[in-house]
């Protein structure tokens, strides 16, 4: 029994780091542009397929191919932003959020159906030579791929944190998120910053999608699932806090795994229920400060 508990704790942490990475892109985009992109999960899905096909057709190692799938998502994100979301950018915040929800909703539908048509509804995993390999620590089995994914997720989050704290552009992004008008008066091209943030969010979704594909699997309908996970984490972690996002992801992962010991069919319901509770009790997030 204790090993079972430890095992599910560990798998909760492993998947939780991916929740964190999935959510951080959504959080970045929302924090800066006030666009709530509910097609974020579909971006993740596309990232997963990118690495799946790179592996299947060209034999590109999924981990080595992360930059490629990120690049693919940069392009897709750019197109998505230029064609659709950029048209909302000048609206008052409330209308912008509402319309972005609608646009994201429609885009999610479109992308999911395109994926269904192109790649069928099959659930696909990336079966590298090392796919099934595990090692054991204190009786807990750890798949190499997922542990590597955890490390990579941490590296990405850390890199993003450093980028936003230390670089000029990163500071400009934070400034724009806080007060776009004051940021303009600093000579910052806020529209450029909006575009950059959106594309960065898409690239992060591409990375997360790859890790999901390699550690778990991909299918066209996974988008909604990952959007919800990201939203849950976003609400728990508070907007604009990378550390909060990571902790939120880990908590969600562990809670789900713990719940799955007793009620395995409801692991995804648990997260959603927490989500609703947090939404109603602490809308500013468990860790986040009040917005503004």
């Amino acid at each position: 029994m204790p090993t079972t508990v430890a095992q599910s704790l560990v798998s909760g942490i492993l998947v939780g780091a991916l929740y964190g990475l999935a959510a951080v892109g959504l959080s970045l985009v929302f924090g800066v542009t006030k666009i709530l992109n509910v097609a974020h999960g579909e971006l993740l899905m596309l990232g997963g397929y990118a690495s799946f096909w790179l592996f299947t057709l060209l034999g590109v190692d999924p981990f080595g191919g992360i930059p490629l799938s990120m690049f693919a998502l940069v392009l897709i994100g750019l197109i998505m932003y230029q064609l659709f979301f950029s048209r909302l950018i000048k609206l008052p915040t409330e209308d912008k959020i509402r319309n972005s929800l609608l646009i994201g909703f429609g885009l999610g539908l479109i992308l999911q159906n395109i994926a269904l048509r192109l790649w069928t509804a099959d659930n696909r995993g990336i079966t590298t030579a090392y796919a099934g390999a595990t090692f054991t620590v204190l009786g807990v089995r750890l798949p190499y791929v997922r542990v590597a994914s955890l490390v990579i997720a941490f590296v990405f989050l850390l890199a993003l944190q450093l980028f936003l704290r230390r670089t000029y552009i990163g500071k400009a992004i934070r400034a724009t998120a806080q007060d776009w008008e004051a940021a303009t008066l600093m000579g910052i091209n806020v529209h450029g910053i909006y575009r950059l943030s959106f594309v960065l969010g898409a690239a992060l979704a591409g990375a997360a999608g790859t890790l999901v594909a390699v550690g778990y699997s991909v299918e066209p309908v996974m988008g909604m699932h990952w959007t919800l996970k990201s939203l849950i984490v976003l609400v728990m972690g508070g907007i604009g806090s990378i550390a909060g996002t990571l902790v939120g992801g880990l908590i969600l992962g562990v809670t789900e795994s713990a719940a799955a010991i007793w009620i395995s069919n409801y692991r995804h319901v648990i997260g959603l229920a927490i989500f609703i509770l947090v939404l109603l009790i602490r809308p500013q997030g468990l860790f986040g400060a009040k917005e503004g």
Partner: protein
Amino acid sequence: MTAKKGISLALLVAGVAALWLVPSMGVSDSLLNLLILMFIYTMLASSWNILGGYTGQVNLGHAAFFGLGTLVARILYTGGRPLFLALLAACVVPVAFSMLIGIPAFRLRLRGDYFTIGTLALSQILYITIGNVLPKITYLPIADIQNYQLGPRYHIILASALFTIGVAYALVKSRLGLGMVAVRENEDAAESLGINAFAHKLLALAVSAFLGGLTGGAYAYYQTSYYFNYTFSPPWSLEPVTMTFIGGVGTIHGPVIGAVFFVLLKEWLVMKVGEYHLIIFGVLFLLVVLFLPGGLVEAWERIRRVFTHRPAGKIVLSPSAEGSDLSGNSLASERKEVPMI
């Protein structure tokens, strides 16, 4: 003016009567089925529109209300209860459920997007839970299937659709409806005029859930078999939103036009391009949200104006359609028009 109104009313009555008589004209079952689908989708879109169109609270989980309606009606009806009771329960249960999120969300004055993602999450909870608890196909009672009659179903569903539109119309034309629109346009201004935003939003939600549940009840009575959780699946949340926007959000006839258009286009597209119709529909939806926020209703108004050379009375659905300052966001938000109450 009154003469014109009289003519419209006469046309309406004649149209409804004609629709009512369709089954007795010896038409094919496939035509009846098509019409029934139109009625059901009309109800689905109209019920969504009451909350989404008139108070601006975007519900991305309408499937929860629809699904609960089907579930309750189906269980009661297959359990031998009378149809009327089954339909009534199908309306009431979703209302009770809607209060679960409505009361806390609106009382806390959460921002609209919190309500939106909350509804998305709730509908997913139901979808997964029902899939776990009732992972089976549900069939109509044997007696019903052996002796399946489209005619009575047609009439009951048509009556439900007329009831739905009637309720929507009555609500929107009442003081309450005006209050709802005021809340949509500017909640603070509405409150300062003495409009209770909380009560108005909650009422709209309740009516939307009630009619969404009725839609589900009608569907449950109509379909011979489906998986229990099918009616909770995401498309049932997506479709009312897309239909309403394509038709014309925040109007009475918009959702009707959107639903008829949706069913016909789907029928036609499925023949032409198979499953690609969902992609085409998604694109259409995006185009409407971005470029034609008033949907087909607005398009029609514009065309008519070109021919009758009427001066343009602009339809402004969200104040966002107006320009704001060069670089950005918030100028317009501080000054929205509030309709006179």
